[in-house]
């Protein structure tokens, strides 16, 4: 009996059958996947996303096999299948296809993450300082707006431009949702770029703060004249009213609003069994599969997409502009409040909950270790989620209408 090694080790032999460009891309993605796992393990990048994503990325590019004599592929997932009969077949073969079809392609996974964020979010700070928080959050949406014309100038259509612009909102589930709604052909690279950059905000924004805010402002302490307390009853009433209002205004983004505010309502109503279910099962389960799925979707064809370089540049521009906008918002509040504010808090308007709030507190503490601003930062942070959801709703409604 003779053993055909090329059929035995198909992951390797397919490297020599494919065109050299794809083979090189596969090898690079395998290495990138391993690097992401390493950086996630070292906590340089967000481990909750990067470890499953890196594993998925290296595995899917390693395990290409001969599906038939002339067709190469993998048995992980087929994101392009749309025909019902083909889908039924694929669901029985590709082991991650059920997760993709029933949670990813319809946006459910984004909603589950959002519900989890709602459960861990205390909106008391937002209710205590609504105008201050909202003003900062609006300024921190600069990237979500200014990136759009740059993206169209670089050749993206309106749907793609809107989806990549939302990276400026710094909210992963929101980017996923917008790209699924408006740029399904690019949702994988856009979402990957978004999550890669969001992982880097913790390391990158401190430099932006140091660049834009001199030390004498960074060490400025905020004087709070009265303690603020918002009851659970007030928070509960707020969530149900605001959810209804936003759903009335933007039915197209209502799944996101419902998920987020329902999460907050469950937290405030104190139903421990639901809180535990959403926080420990839904949030972490969805985050795990989100990371794994993003990695698995990262096959060689993704990196060979000519638009990936444009997306990488635009993602960085969006987050950079939003950071600058947030700090400008911080300065604006500083002058409105007659200098009783720290402009660094503005960075927390970029809604990467709670990373940017932590960055603001960390940088302020470095300059003045007695200055505690977390309540203001978290207020701006939560408002950032709301403003990003509003902008998402507006983009999906306006651009979605144009595309149809």
């Amino acid at each position, binding site marked *: 009996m003779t053993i055909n090694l090329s059929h035995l080790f198909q992951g390797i032999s397919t490297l020599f059958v494919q065109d050299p460009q794809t083979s090189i891309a596969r090898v690079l993605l395998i290495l990138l996947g391993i690097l992401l796992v390493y950086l996630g393990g070292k906590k340089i990048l967000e481990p909750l996303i990067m470890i499953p994503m890196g594993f998925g990325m290296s595995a899917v590019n390693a395990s290409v096999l001969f599906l038939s004599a002339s067709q190469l592929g993998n048995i992980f997932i087929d994101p392009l299948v749309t025909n019902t009969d083909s889908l039924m077949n694929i669901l029985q073969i590709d082991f991650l296809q059920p997760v993709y079809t029933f949670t990813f392609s319809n946006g459910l996974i984004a909603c589950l993450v959002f519900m989890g964020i709602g459960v861990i979010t205390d909106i008391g700070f937002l209710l205590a300082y609504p105008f201050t928080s909202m003003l900062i959050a609006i300024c921190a949406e600069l990237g979500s707006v200014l990136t759009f*014309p740059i993206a169209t100038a670089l050749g993206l259509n309106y749907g793609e431009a809107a989806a990549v612009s939302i990276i400026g909102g710094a909210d992963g589930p929101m980017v996923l949702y917008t790209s699924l709604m408006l740029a399904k052909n690019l949702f994988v690279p856009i979402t990957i770029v978004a999550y890669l950059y969001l992982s880097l905000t913790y390391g990158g924004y401190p430099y932006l703060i140091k660049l834009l805010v001199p030390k004498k402002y960074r060490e400025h302490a905020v004087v709070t004249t009265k303690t603020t307390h918002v009851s659970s009853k007030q928070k509960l009433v707020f969530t149900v009213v605001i959810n209804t209002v936003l759903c009335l205004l933007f039915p197209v983004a209502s799944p996101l609003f419902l998920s987020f505010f329902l999460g907050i309502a469950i937290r405030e109503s104190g139903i421990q069994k639901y809180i535990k279910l959403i926080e420990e099962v839904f949030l972490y389960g969805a985050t795990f599969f989100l990371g794994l799925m993003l990695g698995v979707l990262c096959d060689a064809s993704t990196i060979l997409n000519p638009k990936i370089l444009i997306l990488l540049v635009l993602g960085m521009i969006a987050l950079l502009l939003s950071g600058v906008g947030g700090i400008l918002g911080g300065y604006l509040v500083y002058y409105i409040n007659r200098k009783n504010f720290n402009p660094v808090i503005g960075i927390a308007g970029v809604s990467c909950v709670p990373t940017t709030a932590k960055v603001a507190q960390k940088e302020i503490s470095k300059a003045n270790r007695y200055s505690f601003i977390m309540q203001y930062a978290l207020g701006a942070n939560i408002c950032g989620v709301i403003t990003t959801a509003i902008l998402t709703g507006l983009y999906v409604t306006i651009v979605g209408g144009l595309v149809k």
Partner: protein
Amino acid sequence: MSNSFLIPLEVYGLGIVISLGIAMLIKFMMVVIKKFSKDEPEEKAEEV
């Protein structure tokens, strides 16, 4: 002006109006809730 500029302008303009509207709604709701909840005296929340 082309849609490349009009769309983000429209999105940002409406976004500002709606966001500030929500901030006003929050202020209004806090006052109303405080007025009708006698059993739970709260300290007044104040903007910095």
